[in-house]
């Protein structure tokens, strides 16, 4: 969905009050930017060969963002992407989903029960999962956001909505949180709130 520009009075509580609010930084709100480590075209080619795989990375590294991005690409190719929402429980029947046109996306493989993992492996279904550690499945991508990437995303956010938060704050937070971008955006959100409320 395209978000068009709106006339916005900054004294009104609105989405435009803070460029680091969740609505702007959550997985899928920012684009996944290919880099030396991750190329989405190559990832999808590898997936087409092996039929399943994992996207590996620490917390806040962009795994879910990458998953959503390749999900959109697969959908454009006519593939039915089924999101396995682990908070809602496991799909009623994997057998019903097993179809060449379906790909199962699992965000957080470690949250699956042992029984679910076994059922998944035995189903023959195509799947992609995000993980924090290596599994016995093909590795499609390892996501580790660089400071340069964080700076590019910072530019996207701050070009959209002005802020007094500067790049040194981003750099300090990036190093403080070892590249966990989720925590970085939380830090910058708080800083923007503090700076914008100064007398």
């Amino acid at each position, binding site marked *: 969905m395209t978000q068009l520009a709106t006339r916005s009075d900054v004294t009104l509580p609105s989405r435009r009050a803070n460029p680091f609010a969740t609505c702007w930084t959550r997985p899928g709100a920012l684009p996944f930017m290919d880099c030396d480590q991750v190329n989405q075209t190559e990832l999808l080619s590898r997936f087409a060969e092996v039929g399943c795989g994992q996207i590996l990375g620490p917390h806040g590294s962009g795994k879910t963002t990458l998953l959503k991005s390749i999900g959109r690409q697969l959908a454009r190719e006519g593939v039915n992407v089924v999101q396995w929402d682990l908070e809602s429980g496991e799909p009623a029947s994997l057998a019903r989903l097993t179809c060449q046109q379906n790909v199962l996306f699992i965000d957080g493989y470690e949250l699956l029960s042992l029984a679910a993992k076994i059922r998944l492996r035995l189903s023959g279904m195509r799947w992609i999962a995000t993980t924090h550690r290596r599994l016995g499945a093909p590795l499609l991508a390892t996501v580790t956001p660089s400071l340069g990437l964080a700076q590019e995303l910072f530019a996207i956010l701050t070009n959209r909505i002005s802020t007094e938060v500067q790049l040194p704050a981003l750099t300090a*937070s990036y190093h403080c949180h070892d590249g966990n971008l989720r925590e970085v955006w939380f830090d910058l959100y708080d800083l923007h709130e503090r700076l914008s409320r100064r007398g």
Partner: protein
Amino acid sequence: MSQQDTAVATQKHIVVSEPELQLDRTPAFYEPGDAVRAELLLPGSIAGSLRSIELSLVWFTVGKGDEDLYVSQFQRHQISPAKGKPGVSPWLLEANLPASPLSYNGRAVKVCWAVRARLFDKSGKVSLIEQPLRLGEVAQAPVVESDQQVSGTSGGHA
């Protein structure tokens, strides 16, 4: 035609370069129970390509965590050739604002009210326009100087 009539007639044929939601108050400050009136204006280049339009009055939360959204009033309009006339917008949303929740400019979470328009064009593309408004007058959360500073980010300057 009187000068006033001319002004009214001119206002009804506002030409816009991009979709715009106009509220009936500037600034957009309202109290519980007030009526709010919003008009969607569309440029001719877009009006003809639309299949349907949704207008809604919503409140939602913005902040660091999960977001909530509640639709207070909703309208859906299918576009007919007559309604696609550029510069003249028949798309109006009129509603009475409830008693709560009041708009709140908090630090961790903000409660926001807005009129929203979703435009569905014939190719399937969906566009969103949002025009915020304030309900009530709750003082914004102040700065608390004793809050822990982000490491190395005091003031955020080089």
